[in-house]
């Protein structure tokens, strides 16, 4: 039946077109899209505990509140544990010292690299590359607080309320998700009812598979990066791998930030041996290549049941159309639009279902006007 039929090129063109259109639209609503994504991730993580609490006899509201309280309580405790583990009591300057240490390590790495380049390429020495870069770095450090800190703080302050939406969204998804699904299904005519239930289920499964794929990808990235960094002798390789893998949830920008972080740590760990930092860059690039061209199509692409070639092509299309937001959103969006498009394409062209719907409408009209004969 409907499910096993192959989708034609017209429907697929529509799917790609709608995905591109949505990408362009969503780029302008990123303040809502990001909390929505994080909220959905939390929803899928908390759904099972909430169901258990429901089956244990708690009401829907109490089960939702308890599941959220447990989750966010555990997160807060973890954060507190990490904070107390990384800073000794009474040692308030620990964080500042560490940040200063790593920044100095990073700056020293840039200077050493420039000096090395000048010795290898005399043309760069003639251009006084080191002094130019030093001047830029010094100017950047000197003016950082005045020129950049304010804008960074404003950006963070602007994003914070929007990101705080994520737990609220997760809470309401958990509490009212099933009601919303029933509400949507109620609005559907009887003829299309079963197929709509199937469609809603497929959309739900697609989103769930995507976020599960994302978690698998994070684990794979953490292992590959951690292993690579451990081989070249960088400290805390697994932690660095994990942070970089989480940052990579935001394609491109996240990867760049992750790479800078890894290089800074590597340069600070071995200030006298720049090869460690260069090795970290190589490891990072290899891990990213593996991630973009092997792991991502295999985990996220497979989880969405999209052909790996289409996955890679659509990542490029997403980046071209909507930049960072496009890179991040193109796969889940394509997965959902694909399911909705394929199902709707088959439903609206199904002659029997359309005939049954027309017949039901006639019955309703007849019933409504039964006692209105002139």
């Amino acid at each position: 039946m409907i499910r096993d039929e192959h989708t034609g090129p017209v429907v697929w063109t529509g799917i790609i077109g709608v995905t591109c259109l949505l990408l362009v639209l969503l780029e302008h609503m990123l303040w809502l899209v990001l909390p929505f994504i994080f909220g959905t991730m939390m929803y899928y993580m908390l759904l099972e505990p909430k169901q258990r609490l429901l089956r244990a006899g708690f009401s829907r509201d109490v089960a939702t509140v308890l599941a959220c309280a447990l989750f966010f309580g555990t997160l807060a405790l973890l954060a507190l544990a990490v904070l107390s583990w990384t800073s000794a009591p009474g040692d308030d300057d620990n964080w500042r010292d560490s940040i200063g240490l790593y920044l100095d390590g990073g700056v020293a790495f840039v200077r050493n690299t420039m000096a090395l380049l000048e010795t290898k390429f005399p043309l760069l020495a003639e251009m006084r590359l080191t002094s130019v870069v030093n001047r830029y770095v010094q100017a950047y450090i000197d003016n950082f607080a005045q020129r950049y800190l304010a804008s960074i703080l404003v950006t963070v302050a602007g994003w914070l309320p929007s990101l705080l939406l994520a737990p609220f969204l997760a809470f309401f998804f958990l509490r009212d998700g099933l009601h919303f699904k029933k509400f949507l299904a109620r609005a559907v005519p009887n003829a299309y009812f079963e197929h709509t239930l199937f469609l809603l289920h497929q959309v739900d499964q697609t989103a769930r598979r995507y976020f599960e794929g994302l978690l698998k990808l994070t684990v794979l990235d953490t292992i590959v990066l951690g292993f690579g960094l451990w081989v070249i002798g960088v400290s805390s390789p697994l932690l660095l791998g994990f942070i970089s893998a989480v940052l990579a949830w935001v394609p491109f920008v996240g990867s760049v930030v992750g790479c800078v972080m890894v290089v800074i740590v590597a340069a600070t760990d071995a200030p006298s041996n720049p090869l460690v930092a260069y090795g970290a860059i190589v490891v990072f690039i290899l891990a990213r290549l593996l991630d973009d061209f092997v792991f991502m199509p295999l985990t996220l692409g497979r989880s969405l049941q999209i052909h790996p070639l289409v996955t890679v092509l659509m990542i490029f299309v997403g980046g071209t159309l909507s930049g960072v937001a496009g890179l991040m959103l193109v796969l889940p969006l394509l997965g959902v639009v694909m399911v909705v498009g394929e199902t709707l394409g088959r439903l609206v062209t199904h002659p029997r279902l359309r005939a049954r719907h027309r017949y039901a409408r006639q019955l309703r009209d007849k019933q409504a006007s039964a006692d209105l004969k002139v």
Partner: protein
Amino acid sequence: MKSPTLSPRQHRLHGASLFRSLKPLELKFVDGLMHERRYLKDEIIFDEGEEGQALYLVMSGRVQLSRGPEGSLRLQTELGPGSFFGDLALLDNSPRSAQARALDACEMAVFFRDDFLALMETDAVIGYKISLALARHIGQRLRFQLDGHAQLEAL
């Protein structure tokens, strides 16, 4: 945990053989998964040959199940409140073996297959009770068939 009080709808669900063995709390949980549909007299609920996605439980009204080509002598049966049909759809992807049509204005409780399968995975006790009721129902039908009575509810 205090045993919850059942709504009139849940009382009617509890009256159906499919859910009779469920405790109030379990019934409430299952009810949360079910959809409500209303059909007018003569409206088609599903067609013969259509892929089944759900089980239907008659809450009020009567439903006619009929099989065979239109116009010829069709095998027919009639179901009333508390009966359910479309149960094979819960177990496999096979096409509906008969057409279901409302004989009166009907109210149905609908159990979607994937919700049922998810319930089987997450709650073995509820899943076991419903599966046992389904197995008994199918067994009863088989006995009827062996006795030479035609039964159509196996949709």
